[in-house]
């Protein structure tokens, strides 16, 4: 079963070097375990943009994004046996944040891929 992990947080700023290193190690380990297929961190929304359709109108919103509270900070794609495994591995990932970046708050959302 393929899962996408989407990490969202209202926490501004980049992760601490300790957390960054631990996440890097975990990613390397999960790739070697044949479980992680892809992952990446995302730059703040201010450096990107939004293309929206509202009321039949297409518009480009290029900031400032004052209304956005929680932003997606990163994602990962995993191939795992079941949802239990996905939960166990997401908990492990979030535990790193708890240990190495005290005060950080956020969510790791697990989404199962739809079949083709």
């Amino acid at each position, binding site marked *: 079963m393929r899962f996408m992990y989407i990490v969202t947080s209202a926490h501004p700023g980049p992760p601490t070097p300790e957390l960054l290193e631990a996440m890097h190690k975990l990613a390397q380990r999960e790739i070697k375990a044949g479980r992680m297929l892809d992952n990446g961190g995302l730059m703040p929304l201010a450096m990107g943009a939004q293309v929206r359709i509202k009321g039949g109108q297409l518009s480009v919103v290029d900031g400032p994004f004052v209304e956005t509270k929680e932003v997606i900070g990163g994602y990962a794609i995993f191939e795992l046996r079941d949802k239990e495994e996905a939960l166990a591995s997401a908990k492990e990932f979030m535990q790193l944040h708890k240990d190495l970046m005290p005060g950080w708050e956020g969510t790791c959302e697990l989404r199962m891929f739809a079949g*083709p």
Partner: protein
Amino acid sequence: MTAADVHRAILAAWRIEQPWLITSLARMLRDVSLAEELTQDALLAALENWPATGVPEKPGAWLMTTAKRRALDHLRRDRMLERKHEMVAREMETEQQTMPDLDSALDDDIGDELLRLIFTACHPLLPREARAALALRMICGLTTEEIARAFLVPATTIAQRIVRAKRTLSESGLTYETPSGEQLSERLSSVLEVVYLVFNEGYTAARGNDWLRPQLCDEALRMGRVLTAIAPHEPEAHGLLALMELNASRTGARTDAAGEPILLLDQDRALWDQFQIRQGMRALQRAHELGGAGGFYALQAAIVACHAEATRPADTDWSRIAGLYAELMMIANSPIIELNRAVAIGMAEGAEAALAIVDGLVQKSDLKGYHLLPSVRGDLLYRLGRFGEARAAFEAAAALAGNKREHDLLARRAAEAARAAMSSQFSPPV
């Protein structure tokens, strides 16, 4: 949470940690069989304790500590290994002083350790079935019961295979190390063979009611990904992964609602998994970049890639496929590959050219009992309008088919050829 939910959560937490438990213990003990047993013991310990205490905050660290403690007990009991024990005890002390959960589990050389383990589990000294069972147990963390269910054999059979294989390993006095130099390629091909065996067992499901047993395919794919991650410079590891990814990408299209097989050219290509196709194409490209385009697995992957890249069956590059089969023939001379080449020639150049190759194969008797030879021949004869001969070929093929679904399909084609033969007697050829 029901007891079953708790059990599943514990099993999942253990599985996430299993590769690191077994590699750490193997490094400590220099004995993969024992390492594997103690890794399973750690699961049993978790199943005993966690339903009462709840799953700990860091299940990985708990399991690792438990497993290492047992390994240490084992070393203590064994006075012959006194020196090793001291060394390990010192190592453990240092680890506990630093960060026990991260330091050992997230070790940098974990890939080398895992590779050593895979080379041992898939040692050419062991029979193929034993290698497959050991690999599923040690690398994928499947239980004996799960392996037995996947291979449709009794659990006692798998248990015996594993016990015998472990005995062979410990009696052989093998050194626990990664082979190098000339030995490496021989040992690597033994590993790849096992992974492909597991994949095919799931993909073609020679026995049982299911046409596919996707779990075995998934486990083989996982092993393939492990290999490409820890032995990234081996082109054939990438070639095999590409072959498996590309074949597995069609899983959703290979059977109809009733579970009946749908042949490649009749499949709904919208159901092919494009994500997996991309993964496969990337692995194939990597094999090519490493200079492995002519490898046994890379060539087969390139053939499957021709199908994966064709949006419609009519877009298939059959001449390229025929050329790839010809290349494959050069490294693995097999009448089955030649038969496949004939099918591709039949699509690229026409039935006449293909029939010449197939008739050549009929002359040699290597494929005498193989139903697909008369089946392919019947199809070519039918396309050439030689219906009477086509009927005889399909009947011969049906008689040889081992599987009922295939038998029925071939019998239907024989009847169809017979009808065509009748009507062609009464109408002038066009």
